């Protein structure tokens, strides 16, 4: 099978807490005939902290990665599975397109740092959006070996996949997801046989950004997401954001000891569910790296 290459920007989180997302994204892509080729020597996108420190640095950091993808891979767009990186880089490219002098300023700095210049054109796509547009539910359906039959899922998109629309372009056309009630994950998972449960928490905030800064409120926000998912009657919650994954899953024991059984809800990445449906093993999709009992819940439904 011909393998298509995609310039892949994992971001820092997928090397850390989001490792299972990274592994399962690569597995899922491979099953669809795509290689997620990591951009060589990529660096942090700057997240929301860079703009606090210095406005221009918040464009410089994304531009370096876009320029590397262009130089080494001739890629006009790079794909990231992280909502945080997606927001930061779309913000940068949107602003740079609006204000061409920014590109000049950024290239001046890139030149001083001995880095390649940014062409001011190449852009960023979320891995979910990429999967939906370039492959879509039909391609998923065709690859399913073990349907996710009987598995009740709530899809959790978090904040920065659709928000804010001035950067994400959510709702602009059919290639972009709905700005208030996104559905791309729903459709891909339905194609894999899952029962997607409707709920109101899809784009709630998990509080992950202030996991350290304002821990008390941050935990309350995460608990609210898990509680709603539980009330909706889901077997598992699934997400497309490593920062939400870290907030909800890595902190699971903290949450459980503070809020008790009302927040009991196994957390997965949507690529783990797709990977399993494509015939992957628990190991292939890093299921053992989840803290919130995903393996057990999926076993109970016969998905692994």
């Amino acid at each position, binding site marked *: 099978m011909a393998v298509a290459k995609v310039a892949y920007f994992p971001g820092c989180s997928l090397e850390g807490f989001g490792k299972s997302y990274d592994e399962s994204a690569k597995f899922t892509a491979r099953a669809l005939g795509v290689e997620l080729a990591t951009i060589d020597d990529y*660096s942090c996108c700057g997240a929301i902290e860079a703009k606090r420190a210095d406005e221009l640095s918040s464009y410089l950091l994304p531009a370096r990665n876009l320029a590397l993808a262009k130089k080494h891979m001739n890629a006009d767009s790079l794909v990231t599975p992280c909502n945080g990186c997606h927001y930061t880089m779309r913000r940068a490219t949107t602003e740079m397109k609006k204000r061409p002098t920014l590109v000049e300023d950024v290239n001046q700095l890139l030149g001083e740092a001995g880095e390649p210049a940014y062409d001011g054109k190449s852009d960023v796509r979320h891995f979910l959006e990429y999967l939906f547009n370039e492959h879509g539910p039909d391609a998923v359906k065709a690859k399913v070996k073990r349907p996710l039959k009987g598995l009740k899922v709530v899809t959790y998109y978090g904040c920065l996949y659709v928000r804010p629309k001035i950067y994400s372009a959510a709702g602009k056309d059919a290639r972009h997801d709905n700005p208030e009630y996104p559905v791309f994950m729903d459709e891909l998972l339905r194609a894999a046989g899952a029962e997607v449960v409707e709920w109101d928490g899809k784009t709630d905030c998990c509080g992950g*950004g202030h996991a350290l800064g304002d821990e008390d409120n941050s935990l309350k926000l995460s608990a609210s997401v898990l509680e709603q998912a539980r009330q909706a009657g889901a077997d598992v919650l699934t997400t497309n954001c490593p920062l939400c994954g*870290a907030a909800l899953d890595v902190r699971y024991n903290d949450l459980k000891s503070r809020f008790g059984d009302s927040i009991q809800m196994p957390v997965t990445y949507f690529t783990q569910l797709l990977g399993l449906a494509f015939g992957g093993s628990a190991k292939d999709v890093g299921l053992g790296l989840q803290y919130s009992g995903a393996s057990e819940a999926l076993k109970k439904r016969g998905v692994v």
Partner: protein
Amino acid sequence: MAVAQSPTVVVDGVELTGEWMNFLPFRVETDPFDDALLKETMTLPGGESLAKCWQCGTCSAGCTMNPYVDGFNPRQFIDLVRLGDWEEIRAKSDQIWRCASCQKCTHRCPKEVNTADVVGAITALLERRGVYAKPTNAEVFAEIFMDQVTNHGRIEEAKMGQEFYLKTGRAGELAKRAGMGMQMMLKGQMKLFGGAKVKHWKGMQEVLKRRRAAAGGAH
């Protein structure tokens, strides 16, 4: 015809003058007005779009932190800055920095105000004017984050956590959480030897250092 001179105006049995006289002085706030506050906020990164706000309240209606933090109200923060009401802004200093950066406000604003960034700019204003006795947790976090990016090019999440607890004087809590750290290492999610370094980074490091120094302050 002689003009009737009367200290009161009564229409249909309702005395109006006195009501208005009582009403007007409260409606017009002139004392605390200081447009330096507005000007300063608008020059801070993210504050540029503040003036476009028409006070519709869409941002506050959907704001994530509003139900969790008493008095957290982005529409009102903007209003207070425009009124130049420094005392009120200062009184809300412990609320304002708690913005979760969820972007609901910016997403929905009908006037294309970048509301989340404006709230960030107001926080920066409070920091700049020295309102916080010690740096807010958000400020400490941002500084550690940018130190890591500047020095290594990438972030190590677990290490961020460690440094944060040490810098905020909560080493005891860190020890309590070491259990979680161990669990993570065993699961292979935490890099053991600081592998998250970018190879070609010296030049970028110099540039970032210079930019941060020029922006003023350590962060």
